[in-house]
């Protein structure tokens, strides 16, 4: 089923002097189970696009189908859509309001009208996914660190058992270790749950490590869409759009320029290491002959 977007357009404050075209001519297919990184400069239309995917925004023109449901249809349909597409906003920890971790995560399932056993099962599952065990259940979210609070907020969305999970900058403001932990958990969650994951990020290093496909937005349009290695071999174009490549991709490009026989498909430290070890070995072999 997946996500199908056809000729999507969206204009903010249409008809006013501040009219701004936020999205134009968006055509996109995301299959079930994909892990997509969505990048683009501030104001490029990423947030507007993801808000369309669970019906928070309705297309002004064009169509969006999520798991076979058109997002323009209202009523029960829309409620279902909101459950199927979980949206984790930036700094989601600001949206926590319950007295205990458990209650906060239970809030969504409760509103769905589920029975207590089912709610319990979902809360435990969701909190386990984000690495918070029983000892946290009765704690006040406000006793937790910022990174832990954020995981509680994400668990609240996971407890709805969405088929598609959209995360807007889940690692923003975290320190390197917190960032690493967050990314590892998202990756593990993706592998275990078979959800479709869309990750919005300003960190090229992060999307390079975790996504398998990257969509680049620029000025309300899709500027690039492809495999990670394809996208990060186009460093100059990305820079012109106010983006960047991971530092090791820039290194690979520089080495290629200097005549080293590297491929341009290097975007993580691990890949760079493997490729260079191989080259060094070949060279040593050649010298010994």
């Amino acid at each position, binding site marked *: 089923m997946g996500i199908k977007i056809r000729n999507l357009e969206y204009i903010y404050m249409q008809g006013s002097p501040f009219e701004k075209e936020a999205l134009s001519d968006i055509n996109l297919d995301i299959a079930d189970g994909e892990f997509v990184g969505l990048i*683009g*400069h*501030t*104001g490029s239309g990423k947030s507007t696009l993801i808000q369309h995917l669970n019906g928070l925004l309705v297309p002004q023109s064009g169509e969006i189908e999520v798991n076979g449901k058109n997002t323009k249809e209202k009523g029960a349909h829309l409620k279902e859509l909101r459950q199927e597409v979980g949206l984790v906003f930036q700094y989601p920890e600001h949206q926590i309001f319950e007295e205990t971790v458990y209650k906060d995560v239970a809030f969504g399932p409760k509103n769905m009208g589920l029975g207590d056993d089912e709610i319990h099962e979902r809360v435990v599952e969701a909190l386990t996914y984000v690495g918070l065990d029983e000892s946290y259940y009765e704690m006040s979210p406000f006793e937790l*660190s*910022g*990174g832990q609070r954020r995981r509680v907020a994400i668990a609240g969305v996971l407890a709805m058992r969405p088929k598609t999970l959209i995360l807007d900058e889940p690692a*923003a*403001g*975290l*320190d*390197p*270790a*917190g*960032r690493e932990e967050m990314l590892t958990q998202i990756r593990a969650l993706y592998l275990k749950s078979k959800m479709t994951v869309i990750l919005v990020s*300003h960190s*090229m*290093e992060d999307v390079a490590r975790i996504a398998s496909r990257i969509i680049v937005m620029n000025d309300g349009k899709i500027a690039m869409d492809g495999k990670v290695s394809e996208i990060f071999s186009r460093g100059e174009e990305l820079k012109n759009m*106010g*983006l*960047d490549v*991971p*530092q*090791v991709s*820039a*290194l690979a490009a*520089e*080495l290629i320029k*200097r*005549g*080293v026989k590297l491929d341009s498909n290097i975007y993580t*430290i691990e890949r*760079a*290491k493997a490729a*260079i*070890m191989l*080259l*060094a070995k070949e*060279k040593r072999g050649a010298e010994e002959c």
Partner: protein
Amino acid sequence: MIKTEHLQYTYRTDKTPIEFVLDDVNIEIKTGEFVAVLGHNGCGKSTLAKHFNGLLLPTGGNVYVSGMDTKDEELYWNVRRSVGMVFQNPDNQLVATVVEEDVAFAPENLGIPSEEIRERVDSALKAVGMYEYRKHAPHRLSGGQKQRIAIAGAIAMRPQCIVLDEPTAMLDPQGRKEVINTIKKLKDEGMTVVLITHYMEEATKADRVIVMDKGNVVLDDVPRNVFKEVKLLKKIGLDVPQVTELLYNLKKAGLPVNYDVLTVEECADELAKILL
């Protein structure tokens, strides 16, 4: 410019035992220096920064700003004027509906004559490269531009030092670049700069890097020497630039390379030696 002597900051709540957020911190930041402060969340670096302009006062030891003891109530405003602060979220720091009015906010509060305010606002906006946007509405600017306006607001106070607490955390790559270039330019013009950041690549641009852990300074040196400590930095939840980590890993795997590099070019030089 700024000196801390046995600086200690402790607090306690009803539930928890006494917490040493800062524990005997002794550092000196010289006039005109660009210092980056690194540390994981909760290591005390923001608490430290708030001591630099008297937003927080030491519970033990002393902080001197241009020789002024921040605990001296009579010097309170002089300290605040000497050190400008810029925080993470630009949207929380902008108060006016027109860029130039926002930048004028602080000098107006200082009761400065209006011709001088005009002059200060113009030069502050020029310093951050936002002069042409002086009549724009701040909320319609990009993240990087907003943060540059926040910096202009701080330097319109004519401080001798600015302290930036994760000013790029919410910005895209272009915005990060704009802010870092602005900081470097201010430094070149003689401003003392303290930059708190989680981006290791930004810290490589500083004259000096201070690494904090559990309320203590654990490293304090030029970037090259700090980032050589790959193992220690990783242990305390920090990172090193990707190129440094790559060479560190290659060396561990037995390749004859040095890993005291900070930039893509330096790393390429090092690798070219063994690959070409």
